[in-house]
Structures are given as structure tokens and as C-alpha cells.
């Protein structure tokens, strides 16, 4: 009796299995980051003036620069996807590596920001606000780092060998979600003080 490969055979939804799995990952991430943001909002509503006084210390310039890096990286990853549809390995790898580079800029700016905040005495233990700040931005930064590593693997292991082209789209979906999370964290932590 021949075995049917279940993992690649699900087509009832009309969505390829890998992409469907990424949508489920994004769905679960919505609950994780959304729960964090919802809890932040509850605290923000309850602790008005003291929360504002703490939030006034975050560095808007670095937050804005990081928004710019991520928005631009989202553009680069759709260019990588478009190139992968044309099966253009060189262009696909170039756009993926440019996306990774912007992710690196994001992490560099974030590291500098953490270092200056900690040097000025604002650590994860300082107050409720700073606990949320480090938890939310740290968890987001971890997702950025994971995305960069996965993209590097796809570029060098798959696209270089001209196989598994669909993975470019899948990692692109994940990367856009990471961008969307930052789109909400930026006004929460850096603008609405």
C-alpha cells in the first residue's frame, strides 16, 4: 500500500501546507503580542500620570529609526518574493540579504537603546512600565533575530541551490507580521507619552 505524504498533501483549503502553517503561527503570535499589548493598555489606563512620567524617558528618535528600518525591510522582502516567483536566485538572495541587513540595523539600534537605558538606571525591575518595555521590545527583538537567522538559512541553503522557492514567501509573511507588531509597539512605547 502506497503511503500518502500527509504534510504536503493537504489541499482542502487551497493554501499550500507551509503557508497555511505560517498563517497559524501568525494567528498564535497575534494572541501572544496582542495579550501583551492589551495588558499594557490596561495598565496605561489605570496608571495615567506615573506611567506618562516613565514613558517620557524612551528615545523617540531610535524608535522612529527602527520603524523606518522595518518598513523598508518589509519592502525588500516583497521584492525577494517577487524575484523568487521569477526563479531569479541572484536577485532573491540579494533582497533577502538586504532585508537581513536592515534587521541588523534594527537590532544594533535596539542594543544601543537598551545599553543607554540600563546605564541610566532604567532596568526591567525599575517599574511596571519598564518591565513592559523590556518584555515587549525584547520579545519582538527575539522574533526579529529568529527571522534573520531563518532568512539566512533560506538564502544560502535553498535559494542558492535553486530549490524550495516557496519558503521565501513564507518567511516574508512572518517578517511582515514582525513589522506589524512594531507598528503597534512604536506608538505605545515611544509616541503616546
Amino acid at each position, binding site marked *: 500500500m502506497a503511503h500518502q505524504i500527509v504534510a504536503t498533501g493537504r489541499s482542502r483549503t487551497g493554501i499550500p501546507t507551509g503557508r497555511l502553517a505560517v498563517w497559524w503561527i501568525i494567528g498564535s503570535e497575534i494572541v501572544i503580542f496582542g495579550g501583551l499589548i492589551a495588558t499594557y493598555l*490596561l495598565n496605561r489606563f489605570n496608571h495615567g*500620570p506615573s506611567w506618562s512620567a516613565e514613558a517620557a524617558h524612551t528615545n523617540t528618535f531610535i524608535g522612529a529609526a527602527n520603524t523606518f528600518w522595518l518598513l523598508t525591510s518589509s519592502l525588500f522582502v516583497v521584492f525577494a518574493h517577487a524575484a523568487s516567483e521569477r526563479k531569479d536566485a541572484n536577485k532573491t538572495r540579494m533582497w533577502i540579504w538586504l532585508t537581513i541587513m536592515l534587521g541588523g540595523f534594527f537590532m544594533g539600534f535596539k542594543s544601543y537603546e537598551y545599553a543607554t537605558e540600563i546605564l*541610566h538606571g532604567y532596568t526591567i525591575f525599575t517599574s511596571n512600565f519598564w518591565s513592559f518595555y523590556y518584555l515587549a521590545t525584547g520579545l519582538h527583538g527575539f522574533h526579529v533575530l529568529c527571522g534573520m537567522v531563518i532568512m539566512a538559512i533560506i538564502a544560502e541553503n535553498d535559494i542558492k541551490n535553486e530549490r524550495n522557492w516557496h519558503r521565501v514567501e513564507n518567511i516574508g509573511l512572518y517578517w511582515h507580521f514582525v513589522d506589524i507588531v512594531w507598528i503597534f509597539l512604536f506608538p505605545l512605547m515611544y509616541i503616546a507619552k
Partner: protein
Amino acid sequence: MSGHKHPSYLKIYFTLLILFIISVLGPEMAHVLGLEGVSRALLVLSTAFGIAIWKAYLVCAYFMHLKVEKIYAPYILLACLSLLFVFFFGTATDAMFANGHNWVKKYSEDKALAEVIARDEHHEDDHGHSESHHDSHGEEKSH
């Protein structure tokens, strides 16, 4: 989704950049104009968070191709988003009140604010008044 025609990604990107600039300038304008109360809240909420929702929609619809994706993907996302709203409104009813049946919060906002101000003054003494790496050190006194 290779069969569909791609939208102009650059056009979407520049729209996102313009929205990003407005989201930064809006709250700054509220500060510069000295708005307080409802008018300040309206301006900040609409420019910072209203535009964030708009930006997220553009990324979802065009960069993530949700507009042309099979209907199951939006269903998955909306189901998870609905769970989130259940969580938020389920807990908000307790979290937003200072007391309830058989419980009272011991938290005092005035005391918390005084502690933050005292700690910041202590920090300024430690690091010197000339040092101001944070962009809004000057405005923290106004809170």
C-alpha cells in the same frame, strides 16, 4: 499566490512612510500647540493609533497579499483576534476598577507619581544636569 498581478509595492511603501511621518508629527503637534484633555487625546489617538491600524491594514492587504489569499487565512487571523478581545474585555472589567466585592486595590497613583519624580531627581543628581540623552527630559516635569 503567484497567479495574481502584484500591486505597486513602492507606492504602498511611500504611503506607509507618509503615514509614519504623520503618526510621529501628530502627537508632537499636540505638545507644541499645548492641547490638553479631550482634544489632545483625540489628536494623539487618531494620529498615533488610528494611523497604526491603517498601516497594519496596508501591510496585511498588499505586502502579505491577504486581499488575494484564500478566505481561510483571514478566518484564522480573525478567530485569534476575537480570542484576544474576549481576553481584554473579560479582564478589563476587573482591572479598570479600584475595588469590587471583597477586594480593594492598595495602589495609589499620587504616591506612584511622587516616587517616579523623586527617583528621576535622584538620577539627575547622579548623572549631572547637562547630560540629556533622552529626547524628552525637559517635558517630564510637566507630568
